[in-house]
């Protein structure tokens, strides 16, 4: 995956991943973060990518756009590819 995949990231003020440290449902989120966190940061070093773990937490991704608008998608049960797709959807659908 290249930096180009996340070029839209600069339009997002902040990303928040929720996940469980061990659950099967969060496995995709964990795999995605382990492999792509670096790329995310390289694409936009100033965007906070908050990784918030808690046992039993449901896999979720929040994106905060300008003016405090937040969107959330569930990542529970998705694999790393699915997580990436969700992220790209959020990044590309900046609310006007």
């Amino acid at each position, binding site marked *: 995956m290249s930096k180009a995949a996340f070029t839209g*990231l*600069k*339009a*997002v*003020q*902040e990303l*928040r991943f*929720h*996940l469980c*440290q061990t659950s099967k449902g969060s496995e995709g989120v*964990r795999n995605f*973060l*382990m492999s792509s*966190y*670096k790329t995310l*940061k*390289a694409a*936009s*070093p*100033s*965007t*906070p*990518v*908050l*990784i*918030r*773990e*808690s*046992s039993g*937490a449901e896999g979720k991704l*929040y994106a*905060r756009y*300008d*003016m*405090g608008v937040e969107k959330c998608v569930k990542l529970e049960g998705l694999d790393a590819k699915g997580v990436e797709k969700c992220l790209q959807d959020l990044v590309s659908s900046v609310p006007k």
Partner: protein
Amino acid sequence: MTRLAVARKASREAYKTLFGARAGAMRAMSAEAAPNPDTVPVTVNGQEVHVPKGVTVLYACEQAGVDVPRFCYHHKLSIAGNCRMCLVEVEKSPKPVASCAMPVMPGMNIKTTTDLVKKAREGVMEFLLINHPLDCPICDQGGECELQDQSYIFGSDRSRFTEYKRAVEDKELGPLVKTVMTRCIHCTRCVRFSTEIAGVQDMGITGRGNQAEVGTYISKLLASELSGNVIDLCPVGALTSKPFAFTARSWELEGTPSIDVTDGLGSNIRVDTRGNEVMRIVPRANEEVNEEWISDKARFSYDALKRQRLDRPMVRGSDGKLQETSWEFALDYVAEKLKATEPDAIRAVAGKLCDAESMISLKDMMNKLGASHTTPEGMANVSADVRSSYLFNSNLVGVEDADYVLLIGTNPRTEAPVLNVRLRRAVIAGGATVTSVGPNADLSYPSTHLGDTTATLEEITSGKHAVCEAIKAANNPMVIVGSELLRRADSKILLKKIHAMCDELGVVKGDWNGFNVLHDAGGTVGALDIGFVPGTSASNDVPAKLVYSLGAEEFDAPAGAFIVYQGHHGAQGASKADVILPGAAYTEKTGTYVNTEGRAQVAVASMGPVGQAKEDWRILRALSEFAGVPLPYNTHEQVHRRLAEVAPHFAKLNEVEATLWMNGATYAHEKARKADASIPFKSSVENFFMTDVISKTSATMAKCTEARNEMNA
């Protein structure tokens, strides 16, 4: 070896084999777990219980639910066996035995309700009372005195003693601990505490028999950051709190469970109030956090809650002076300024004592206004992305499992005295090695100072230093990074190297994560957890025109910028402000604080804010309404729900969540640059007694500083 020593050793070893190094776990263990080859059956007052081999008779009695009176025995200290109050009868033993020092034998038949036991305890009590003054009515321990309580049961209603009582000269132990040595019953708890727990060899017993005295021999103050704990330990009124002296009786006080914010540990405290006034602060037991101890700063800085308080809204007038105003005017004024300022020129800084509720309210409001430049005080350069990069990952109890500790830029004795107790135990009882890159300080246990420069650290991180082999060879190596390192401009470069070293040298392996950050204030981790960091669009290119300080004392504000200070004390931060919004101190609001290991805990409000001050998140909620961006929460529960939506661990109070280690990815995007070699590593705490706005305002802490300086002069 004497019998006592044998018993002590046997019982300690038994605890260790059964429960590991964490002695606290023993109380949680149920006696019903038998049959187990490691337990023995004993009978207490006819009831059979199974207890671990080698524990004491007193422990067996406790397991059977039988209360044994005691003065010298304390489960956190070594066994002294000198008060003789815990005498019990053991069948086939010719004399009553001191249960705190006697190990159990299989089939022992223990009796605590017989005439022999009663007579023995009454005898001990009578001897203790011979020389104990009858000053309970004017004694500060009155109402919570172990001697008083037990004399109701075992004391005689008249004295057979006709001579004068013994009188002992009072000792001067400094500005915190008041002594009335005539009341001392020589239990030696204070002596054992200072020697074993605090690690200062100041106290001891001089003289013998009737001439025995507890004291420091050469008059000097108790040079420990934990000295206040001897007040709790003293079973009588010999050692009491000097600032609390004659201010209240214990039965007038109302206790509220709270959390200490003066360091990063989140020690559990109880705030004792009378009416709308904090009278004293004492620890609550929490084995996983502070055990039973708190630091002197946590215990004694409360007098500042009545000094230099901001109790009404103020606005700087045209003459440059702050003038009283109404809440409505102040909020309207700030809201107009917020609306009129372009979002990129707004800055929000959260102070280090803030609760998570007020910080999330401020952040949400700022974000809704389009501003995203939010920073925690002094931590502008810290990444909040990965929790394991800024938390104490081994947990506080994990310190006792460590066998090698590398301190980087930290002095745990002043930054977190209660954590230092665990480190000391790891060294003294567990045989751990402590080395330090940073301040060369007396930690109260042996440690090796390696240097204080970035060059020394780089030598270690690159694997060239001699200690690397030792770290590699250790089972549970631990690195503790001080919060001052996080405040450095080159912190990310250094942290990148430290992270790489942790992976390289096995500091993080399997279930063990030995990378730890020790924070020095109660609000910093909460700020990082909720992501109180600059968003994508935040930049310093646009100079600040409006700075909103939520209790932050030190922040950058260019001349001419409009400054709003919301906080509880009039100090550095408030003096610069154009508008002051009076908030609540940590004892006056119900708030969530996250400690250095990532444990979210709630402090309950013990009283209302002073004057016209309000709870901080409510001020921000009201302000958001004025500013036209109303926040979507109206009750404390709703704010807390918002916190859990931002970071799910806020929903799990009092628990520590295991953190994800990113295997070097955390700082992978940071470019390798040179660290600033000209700045040596130092501790974030120069004067233990004065670190935040509360302790800096406290008169007691000022006295302590003076006394400490005099001692060192």
